[in-house]
C-alpha cells in the first residue's frame, strides 16, 4: 500500500465536501415567497380570464337556447345567400345577338382606356324584298315587283282568282 496515497485522497475528499457544502448551502434572495406568490396569482388569473373568454362564448347551457341560436344562424346564412344571388342577377345585362349595347361608363376611367363607339344599325339594302307573302296553303310567293337578276328563272305566280 502506498502511504502517500491516503492523505492525498483525504485532501481531495475534503475539497469535494467543501464544494458540495457550498453548493448546498446557498440561500435565495430575500422575498422569494412573495415573488412566487405573485407569479402564481398572475398565472391563476390569466388562466381564469382565458377560460372566461374562451369557453363562455360557446357555453350555452340549455338545448332550446342552442337550437334557437343555430336556427338564427342558419336563417341569416340563407338570407345572405338569397340576397347575394338577387344582387348578382340584377347586375347581369341582357345580351342580344348582333346588337351590342352601349356600356355605361362611371366616368372614372383613365384617358387611355378604350372607348368603343356605338355600332350603328345599318338599313337593309334597297331593292330587296322587304316582305314575303304567303298563300293560304302555305306556299311562299315573291311579289311581282321584285327586281331579279337576268337569266334567273322564276316560276309564275298563280292568280288569286284561281
Amino acid at each position: 500500500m502506498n502511504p502517500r496515497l491516503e492523505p492525498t485522497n483525504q485532501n481531495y475528499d475534503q475539497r469535494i465536501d467543501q464544494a458540495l457544502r457550498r453548493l448546498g448551502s446557498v440561500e435565495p434572495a430575500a422575498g422569494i415567497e412573495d415573488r412566487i406568490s405573485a407569479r402564481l396569482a398572475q398565472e391563476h388569473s390569466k388562466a381564469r380570464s382565458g377560460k372566461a373568454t374562451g369557453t363562455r362564448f360557446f357555453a350555452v347551457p340549455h338545448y332550446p337556447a342552442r337550437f334557437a341560436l343555430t336556427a338564427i344562424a342558419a336563417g341569416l346564412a340563407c338570407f345572405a345567400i338569397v340576397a347575394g344571388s338577387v344582387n348578382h342577377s340584377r347586375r347581369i345585362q341582357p345580351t342580344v345577338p348582333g346588337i351590342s349595347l352601349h356600356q355605361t361608363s362611371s366616368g372614372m376611367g383613365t384617358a387611355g382606356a378604350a372607348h368603343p363607339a356605338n355600332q350603328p344599325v345599318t338599313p337593309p339594302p334597297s331593292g330587296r324584298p322587304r316582305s314575303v307573302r304567303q298563300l293560304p296553303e302555305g306556299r311562299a310567293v315573291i311579289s311581282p315587283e321584285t327586281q331579279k337578276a337576268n337569266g334567273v328563272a322564276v316560276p309564275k305566280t298563280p292568280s288569286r282568282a284561281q
Partner: protein
Amino acid sequence: MSTFPGQLTGWMAPALISEKAQTSANTLDSSETITALVAQYSATLYRVAYSVMRNAAEAEDAVQEAFLRVLKHREKLDEIHDLRVWLIRITWNVVLDKKRREKTRPENDDIADYVRVLPSADRAVDHSLISSQEHQRILMLIDRLPHKEREALLLSAVQELSTVQIATVLGTTESSVRSRIFRARRELSALLEKEGISR
C-alpha cells in the same frame, strides 16, 4: 417585513364566487396548502434547482415553474404521501428539462451572483479552504461525471435530503444511490488528481 402570507392566502378567492360550495371549499383548501408549501419548501427547492442551474435567477425561475405545476395539479395534493419529496421531484424534473434545453447555450456560472447568495459565515469559513475559482473548477469536473453519478452527487449536496429521499427522487433504490455517490466521489478525486488541483 414580508407581506407573503396575506398576499397568498386570498389569491384564489375571486374564483370562488360563482362556484359551488364544495368546489370552493376544496379550492380554498388547496390554496392554503400551496401557501404553506411555498413558505416551507421554497428555500429547499431553490437549493435543489441551484445545484444544477448554478444561476440565482434561473434557479428561482425553476422553483416558480415547479409551483406552477403544483397549482396545475392541485387536485392531487390530497393523494400525495410525502409532499416534500414530491416537490423536490417536480423541481428536479423542471431543472433537468431546462438544462437539456439550454445545452446549446454556453455554461453561465454566475460567480458574482453565487457570492451574493452565499451566507456570509459559511463564505468566510470555506474561503479559507478553497477559493472561488477552485470551487468553480470542481463544479465543472462534477459536470463531466456520468449523469447517474452526477445527479446522485448533486442531490447529496442538498443537506436536507436523506439517501432514501434521493432514491425516491431519482426513482431508484437506496443502495444504488449510495454506490452512485461513492463512484462519483472516487471518479471526481481521480479527475482532480489528473487536473492537478492540489493544495
